[in-house]
């Protein structure tokens, strides 16, 4: 197993994609394949000792199954000790601040903290004042960097496979992000990652679900699905939270489905080679129809597989780069 080059990776934490430049993003993407191989070993022994003796704490202030599972698996396949903590996102009401909780965890010598929190900026705030490596596993509607990394990895992998070019990049790729962009940390991180990797991004959804001045992020914005899909190489359906119905942001799920669902009908607007992604969990037949989610153009389960490898790469880079200097 290659040691990471400290000249490529020098950051203590992974807080967001916005803080990363292209070479840092590519450093993570290029570190992932070796870990993908670990998970696919013919021997069945899906483990390497890179984080042996280290403590990874999965600290989730919001319910999460797949992200937490993916991080936990990633840590275990790196031979780390893992600890899971779940807490109500309103723990500040009970009196203990995030700083205090983390100080307590650190008093037990944690190495990596994987934090999911409902408030934007929570990992940013902790990273500044604590010595553990902080990995943002989703903060409010701000960022979800490992999701964007695994998405970019999956798109790049598909492009390499289709083109037969093993070093193909996402330069010039056209990606359409469809749905609730405003409330989506996945969308934000993907916009930062994809634009930095040279892709052209279009966001599309009901106007109240598109963020203020989103074009300034370097993306094209439209409320017409036909336009968004017309030249897309990749179509990324974002989750619609069912609770948003009745919030007044759009009239009904029914009309949302008519205007914005990715299904066999709407895919007719897209080029034949367009592939479909979704961050999960899918609201079947709401933002994504079953036949598309389970069809040959879907990369959804490949995203999940790649997610473990990306998270292994991130933990390895954070924990092993600085100590090797």
């Amino acid at each position, binding site marked *: 197993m290659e040691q990471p080059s400290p000249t490529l990776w020098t950051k203590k934490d992974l807080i967001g994609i916005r803080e990363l430049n292209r070479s840092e993003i590519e450093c993570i993407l290029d570190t992932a394949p070796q870990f993908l191989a670990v998970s696919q070993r013919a021997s069945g022994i899906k483990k390497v000792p890179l984080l042996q003796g280290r403590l990874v704490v999965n600290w989730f202030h919001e319910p999460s199954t797949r992200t937490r599972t993916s991080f936990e698996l990633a840590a275990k396949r790196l031979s780390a000790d893992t600890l899971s903590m779940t807490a109500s996102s309103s723990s500040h009401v009970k009196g203990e601040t995030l700083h205090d909780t983390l100080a307590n965890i650190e008093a037990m010598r944690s190495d990596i903290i994987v934090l999911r929190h409902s408030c*934007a900026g929570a990992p940013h705030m902790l990273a500044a004042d604590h010595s553990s490596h902080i990995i943002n596993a989703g903060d409010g509607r701000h960022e979800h960097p490992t999701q964007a990394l695994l998405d970019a990895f999956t798109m790049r992998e598909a492009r390499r496979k289709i083109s037969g070019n093993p070093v193909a990049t996402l330069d010039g790729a056209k990606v359409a992000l469809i749905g609730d962009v405003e409330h989506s940390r996945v969308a934000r991180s993907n916009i930062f990652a994809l634009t930095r990797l040279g892709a052209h991004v279009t966001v599309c959804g009901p106007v109240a679900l598109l963020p203020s001045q989103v074009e300034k992020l370097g993306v094209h914005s439209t409320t017409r699905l036909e336009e968004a899909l017309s030249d897309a190489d990749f179509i990324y359906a974002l989750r619609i939270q069912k609770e948003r119905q009745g919030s007044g942001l759009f009239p009904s799920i029914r009309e949302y489905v008519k205007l914005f669902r990715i299904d066999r009908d709407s895919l007719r607007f897209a080029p034949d080679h367009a592939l479909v992604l979704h961050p999960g969990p899918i609201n079947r037949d709401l933002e994504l129809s079953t036949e598309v989610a389970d069809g040959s153009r879907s990369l959804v389960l490949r995203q999940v597989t790649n997610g473990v490898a990306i998270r292994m790469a991130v933990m390895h880079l954070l924990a092993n780069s600085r100590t090797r200097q």
Partner: protein
Amino acid sequence: MSLVISNGLVIDPANNLSGICDVLIEDGKIKEISTALQGDKVLDATGLVVCPGLVDIHCHFREPGFESKETIASGSRSAARGGFTTVVTMANTNPPIDNAGLVELVIRRAREEACIHVCPAACATKDLKGSEITEMADLKAAGAVAVTDDGRDISSSSVMRHALDYAGMVGLPFLSHSEDEALAAGGAMNEGYCATLMGLPGIPKVAEDIRTDRNIRLAEIANAHIHIQHVSTAASVEIIRQAKKRGAKVTAESAPHYFSLTDEATLNFNTNAKMNPPLREKEDVEAIIEGFKDGTLDCIATDHAPHTQTEKRVEFEVAPFGIIGLETSLALTITHLVNPGHVSLEKAVALLSPGGARVCNLNAGTLTPGVSADIAIFDPQEKWTVLSEEFASKSCNSPFVGATLQGRVRYTLCKGTVVYSAS
């Protein structure tokens, strides 16, 4: 016992005075302003500006109820360090100042503890609930200088109208926090590009603008004096400008942070740059500066809003709104309004002292012989770095910590007594 402040640049906008001269103080009052004056003691003000003590008509001293953030004693020391000798305190304490007894309590506590003049504003509605108006005649008789539900607006246009009717009748200015609660609900910062980058829920400018317009129009039919607090948007400046043109009895303030910072100051999730209304954008900063220049905005007020470090050292969305401002107001005005040439030093003093005094009909903001000798003496050239441990306030929630500013208070005198001196 007399004191002469000698050889300073005396700026007294109310008397159109700006020149090197001496100020003679006798028995706590201004006796004479002239040259070559004699007194028992002399304070050499060569190279310094001598002006009426600054007046802040918008600050939160948190007493009673939130004494860990600030008290009347600590707030008044903070004011004195900033050159202020008269402040108007907001009513959103616990309990809120909504009856005469509580107004008297604040006045009594100020008499016991404060080194400067503390004038309470009282609630416009009972318990700040926006439903029943307060006994404003009683409040005025007890010493309240204004009514306000600051911290929130009055949702019901009908209650707002009657509150203005009544304030107009008893002759108290209505200090208006103009904000549409429904549009602002859940917001943590200005709605715009920065909020989009940070994934934070936004407060749109229009939430302020539509209520600025509504509240002025209601004041016009009530024939009441309305004062728009903490103006932060270009559109609100224009709404006030137009209202003044058509003769509305409207005055307005903005705070130093609204002309010296934009929402980019929050980009690192700095909770000390979180306040309501939120920091806006470049075009708003420019419009506010223009508003001061053309007289649309009458005064600079700080909206001094102390919160403890514990309260602010949390997730951005959870952190309370507000920053302290008394100790940086003068320096920010010199640094961001005077230095770039937007306003003269005389105009800056006018905005910081008589401007606010006039809004609340306070007997302050001038050096006219016979008035209380409330005086600020500052070095307009001195550069200093804002350090959190040096604040006289109990709190240090300021986005300007670490900033180097120009213009430093050297002495503050209240009733002829030095209540602050820089050492």
